């Protein structure tokens, strides 16, 4: 009896505490509180405010690094996540930000697929229509599709040793028939039309297919040359001799009017500020990172994907027709000698 009474008291005490606690909770919820996390965030905000003010006329910075394709890089911790849609979203975000008066696009790319490059160019033109000045800054290289994007900008700034150009179109197909014969793999292909398996890697290309693809390449090439000619105000007849796929150093590109000035990324930012009539040192706004999207894409890429046979044999499913340079040899040719090589 004693035990029961004692336990009853304890339970009543606890129930009363819960009731009082809930009443206090309602009172506390109405009162604004600053948690340790908030205090930390506000400290960081104050610390970084001098580097990245949130208000006032600013210059937006977008980075296009690596091959330009719609296939996005899947790393969760990548410093420069890639993917045309990411670039488009970043430019759009800056276009819709009223405090951004100019956008600098830092390019370090060997080029990419035709569709993705043209979509990025379209977004740049939308930003220009919205009254933003768009400046391209070439880091190591802006080849082919990279240069296509740069040519859509109002100005192009490159380092003297930056590599650019490689205006042209390429389709690469492999003929692995002999390899498959050796290892004993035979493909059974049922197709609705003669050219349905054009660019197939299990057989050689026919002359007719070669002509079809060459026509396709020349059509895309024409689009490329026209875009550069319009973007850079260079007559086509003057541009064509330069548009045979050759690459240029920054200095050579300046001589051939393919870029506007020599300079670093900082120079490009200053030029953007000058064109946008921003007084003083411009503040930089980078598009916000989307950690949750990045996390879920990472999870999806790691656990949700079953590669097809084509993926395993031919790699990712990007368009075969590309504004892209074969940079392996270019990098070797233009690499500065290191001490050990001297």
């Amino acid at each position, binding site marked *: 009896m004693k*035990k029961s009474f004692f*336990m009853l008291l304890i339970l009543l005490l606890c*129930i009363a*505490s819960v009731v009082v606690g809930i009443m206090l909770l309602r009172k*506390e919820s109405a009162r604004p509180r600053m948690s340790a996390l908030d205090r930390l965030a506000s400290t960081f905000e104050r610390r970084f405010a001098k580097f990245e003010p949130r208000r006032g006329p600013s210059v937006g910075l977008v980075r296009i690094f690596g091959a330009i394709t719609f296939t996005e890089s899947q790393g969760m911790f*990548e410093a420069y996540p890639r993917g045309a849609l990411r670039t488009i979203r970043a430019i759009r975000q800056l276009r819709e930000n009223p405090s951004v008066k100019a956008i600098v696009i830092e390019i370090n790319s060997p080029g990419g697929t035709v569709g993705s490059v043209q979509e990025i160019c379209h977004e740049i033109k939308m930003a220009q229509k919205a009254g933003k000045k768009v400046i391209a800054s070439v880091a190591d290289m802006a080849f082919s599709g990279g240069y296509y994007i740069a040519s859509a900008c109002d100005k192009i700034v490159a380092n003297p040793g930056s590599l650019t150009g490689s205006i042209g179109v390429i389709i690469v197909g492999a003929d692995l028939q002999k390899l498959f014969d050796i290892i004993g793999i035979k493909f059974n292909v049922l197709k609705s039309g003669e050219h349905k398996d054009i660019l197939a890697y299990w057989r050689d290309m026919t002359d007719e297919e070669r002509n079809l693809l060459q026509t396709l390449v020349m059509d895309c090439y024409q689009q490329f040359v026209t875009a550069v000619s319009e973007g850079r105000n260079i007559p086509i007849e003057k541009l064509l001799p330069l548009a045979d796929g050759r690459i240029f150093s920054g200095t050579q590109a300046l001589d051939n009017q393919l870029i506007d000035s020599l300079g670093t990324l900082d120079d490009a930012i200053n030029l953007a500020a000058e064109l946008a009539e921003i007084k003083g040192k411009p503040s930089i706004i980078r598009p916000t990172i989307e950690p949750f999207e990045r996390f879920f894409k990472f999870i999806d890429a790691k656990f949700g994907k079953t590669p097809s046979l084509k993926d395993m044999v031919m790699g990712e499913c990007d368009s075969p027709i590309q504004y892209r340079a074969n940079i392996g040899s270019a990098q070797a040719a233009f690499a500065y000698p290191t001490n050990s090589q001297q």
Partner: protein
Amino acid sequence: MQSEFALPYDNMSPLEKPEGALTILYNQLVSPKKAVQALSERRPYWLAFFVIVLSVLSRMTAGLLSPSSPLVFGAGSLFALLCIAQFFITVIFAIAAASIYHFAATNEFKLGDVRVLFLLIAVCFLPGIFFAPITLLVYGLPSAAATAVWTLCAIGLWVWSFVLQIIAVKNYYEISGGRSFFAVILPFILVGALGAAVFVLMFAYLVGTIRGLVG
């Protein structure tokens, strides 16, 4: 004259009568061995529900009023929702823990009933009802002192609950204290191993990414 609806123990002397729920709860706090015996004989499952509900309410109230409260995230307005979620989490934890303890503790002498073990584990959450009174006691104290006292008390209550679980498994399965301890920490070992595996995978991926960036 004996009633038609008389319970079997109505004619027993007060000392022979089965213990009431309040006495069982009292014993659970001060003499858990007796409580284990009474619970395993009478199996009052409603008591498990009662203890879980009260401890969840107490823990959630304390958690939201504690010195490191997440109230700033608007948790106050979600109190009911958080309590319901916490209730289901606690029940699922008790079921999972009962299954794992049962797996680790069953022996050739005593097979045991996993449902009784669930009841015993649920009643082991009883010290959790003290979270709310403790939080109210430290409510007026200066911030640093309140944090220190509250944290110490919270650790004490968790350890108390943990020890009760060890005693419950030990007495119900009639196994040694060491084996009972092993059975109770087994879920934590499993979760720790899983966490370590995930950490190693993430670390390997991070190193690979950094090497990719550098190279």
